[in-house]
């Protein structure tokens, strides 16, 4: 009896160990596949029996689309609506959605793991930094979506998708030589403010020149309010979204914009020490010396800086147009969103560049996926161009829809959230050009990281007038050039 008991005990322990080991080894082998890839070897006779939808895809093959959704300030309601409509139309297609505000951590882990089966079929390309997306795009990891440009817009036969997209957006999607994501919406960034506060103090809500802009800041400070705030913990909100635009304004005014932009996108020539960028930094420094940024700005996080504007402690916050949706629970009833960008020149007719993710709202499809899965994922993307989904994108997620013809109907325009309306109003008053600050590649050597760190660390010090930016820019430039040299040698 005792021996039997012991044997049982040992056996049970072995089984427990085996189960544990099996758990550790992974679940990919035992898990049923989420999709049924089309079988090219299916007999000709069988083909006749397959019922097809109008899009040519089989009705009987069940497909589960694994979606990774970045649940940002824009929420997920618009996606839920789209998914519901799509699954009702195509009942064989269902969705397995993983939505997270920190999708990048899931996404990057899955990609690093290198298990294509486990990877999302389609996903918001939300990475911890923009350079990750560029690298993956250049490495051809995304399914090209170029074939969708010739597809008809949902419920509007004959109207091609390409025809409802601006040239800017189209070019931006082709930045890596192929369409990595069909653009669904765009965001803009700049200074956001409370129009009612501006009205109360009689401040200029739409300065058209640099002098007017500086005069506005002086007035605001004179009235005892912080002119400009930003999250110092992530200080790039000030440079990336507003002051870095000044270099493009200046290049445009100097007549060398195209060359400047080409150098910028491809890391050709000087990057941190161009006359235009030095001037942009110098302006932050000069404004900092005048005390136009909060003294303890380095301690402010994203929410704290935006709250300063909602509470009327600061006049302008440098952020993106998601601020409206993100802060809607805390926005007072008497608050009316306004928008402005920096007019770098003293010419009222100047081009004012506004930071924009022209084609940044959309889904990418992972290339190493079964063909049928990818086809259904593309069908889903096309369905997102329907007006009711674009309207939802505008009204619920606070995103500016990508369709050009969206603005042809006043009823649809009325569905835009106040922040997007404010951006649109600003663009009507000024000669605005939207610009994306994407690069075509990113150097990876440690010197490049060090250069970026040098620059990002000085932002709060420059903005409080404590540090002259020029020596730091020189040092960063030397490091970056060294990194680029290394990059050339390796290639």
């Amino acid at each position, binding site marked *: 009896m005792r021996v039997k008991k012991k044997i049982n005990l040992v056996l049970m322990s072995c089984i427990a160990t085996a189960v544990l080991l099996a758990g550790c080894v992974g679940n990919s082998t035992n898990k049923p596949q989420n999709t049924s890839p089309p079988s090219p070897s299916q007999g000709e006779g069988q083909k006749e029996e397959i019922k097809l939808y109008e899009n040519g895809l089989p009705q009987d093959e069940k497909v589960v689309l694994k979606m990774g959704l970045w649940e940002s300030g824009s929420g997920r309601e618009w996606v839920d609506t789209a998914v519901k409509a799509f699954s009702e139309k195509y009942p064989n297609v269902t969705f397995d959605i993983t939505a997270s505000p920190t999708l990048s951590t899931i996404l990057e882990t899955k990609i690093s793991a290198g298990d294509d089966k486990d990877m999302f079929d389609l996903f918001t390309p939300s990475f911890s930094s923009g350079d990750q997306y560029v690298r993956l795009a250049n490495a051809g990891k995304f399914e090209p979506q170029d074939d969708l440009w010739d597809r008809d817009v949902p419920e509007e036969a004959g109207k091609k998708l390409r025809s409802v997209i601006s040239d800017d957006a189209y070019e931006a999607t082709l930045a890596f030589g192929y369409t990595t994501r069909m653009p669904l919406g765009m965001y803009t960034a700049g200074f956001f403010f409370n129009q009612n506060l501006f009205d109360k103090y009689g401040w200029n809500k739409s300065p058209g020149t640099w002098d007017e802009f500086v005069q506005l800041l002086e007035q605001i400070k004179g009235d005892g309010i912080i002119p400009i705030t930003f999250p110092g913990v992530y200080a*790039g909100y000030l440079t990336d979204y507003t002051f870095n635009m000044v270099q493009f304004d200046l290049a445009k005014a100097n007549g060398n914009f195209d060359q400047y932009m080409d150098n910028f996108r491809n890391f050709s020539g000087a990057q941190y020490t161009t006359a235009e960028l030095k001037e942009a930094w110098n302006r932050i420094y000069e404004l900092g010396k005048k005390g136009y940024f909060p003294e303890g700005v380095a301690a402010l996080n994203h929410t704290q800086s935006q709250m300063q504007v909602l509470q009327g402690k600061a006049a302008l916050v440098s952020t993106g147009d998601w601020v409206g949706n993100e802060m809607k629970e805390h926005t007072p009833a008497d608050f009316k969103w306004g928008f402005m960008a920096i007019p770098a020149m003293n010419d009222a007719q100047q081009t004012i560049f506004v930071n924009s993710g022209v084609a940044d709202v959309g889904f990418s499809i992972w290339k190493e996926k079964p063909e049928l899965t990818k086809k259904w994922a593309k069908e889903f993307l096309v369905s997102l161009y329907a007006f009711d989904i674009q309207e939802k994108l505008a009204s619920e997620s606070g995103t500016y829809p990508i369709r050009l013809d969206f603005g042809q109907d006043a009823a649809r325009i009325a569905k835009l959230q106040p922040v997007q309306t404010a951006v649109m109003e600003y663009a009507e008053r000024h000669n605005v050009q939207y610009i994306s600050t994407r690069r075509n590649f990113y150097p990876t050597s440690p010197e490049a990281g060090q250069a970026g760190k040098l620059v990002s660390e000085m932002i709060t010090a420059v903005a409080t007038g404590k540090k002259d930016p020029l020596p730091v820019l020189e040092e960063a430039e030397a490091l970056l050039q060294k990194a680029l040299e290394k990059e050339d040698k390796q290639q």
Partner: protein
Amino acid sequence: MNAGLNGQGTKARYRGLQKVSRQRYIFLFVALAPSLLGYLLFTLYPNVLSIYYSLLDWDGLTDAKFVGIDNFVHMFQDKFVWRALYHNLLLIVVVPVLIVLISLVLAYLLNNKTYRENSLYKVVYFFTNVLSTVVIALLWAFIYDGSFGLLNGILGIFGLDMNSFYWLGSSSTALWALVVPMVWGGVGLYVVIFINAISAIPKSLYEAAELEGARPMTMLFRITIPLLRSVIRVCVVFIVLGTIKGFELMLVMTNGGPEGSTDVIGLYMYNLAFGKDYHNYGYASAIGMLLFVILVAAKYIIDKYYPEEKVEF
């Protein structure tokens, strides 16, 4: 005949002993295998792999380039590494001392003073240990807030107008401001450890000392602390190693700012691997190797200058 019987008996006993020994090994194997395997898979394997990663120029997603010892060469020339280590050094000098001292005092008081609320105090002190680092970080970020922060409010009550000073917004105060939540969050666990260690010291030692006229402070320094030496030593090891590799508070409260004044080596490594601006897993792994060497060195130094003393009572 007897010899034969004896021989058989010995053989049977030998076989029996062999069986017991085999069973013991099986039991040991079954008991140890899961945790050993877990350790090999999830601790040792990734760490060994990091050595390989440290020789790469790799963003973590696309193809890696082998760069030999370039990352290590660059690391020793990287001023951010030395700056971060300097901040770590400052923290190592201050944080363990404060945590151990405060924990000892609190533990001594809770053991020797018969307050009615003793058990409540124990819970209260331990409570900080239950809170996640993120909660502690957010709590203290609000305390240090310039406009609405509790600290400026309290100082205001005493007539000190801080003029909306942001404690985490100045490079001269930010690092020291972080020491407070580090100590506050760390004390709870060590109070509990010291309370238990103190209560294990035989009362007879104190009674004998009392009979000989020893004062409480004499008993503290001549009996309690010497007998706690080995416990304190273990605690110091934990706190020092934790202070060297910890960075969660900095990540949430300052992200290394302002102007890098709160950047520590763990945070620098983390941001290189997972940060918002730049990614290089290879370089981050090289820094991870350096961190590993520093941790081993710290343990060695503690062992050398604070040797373990076994006390029996």
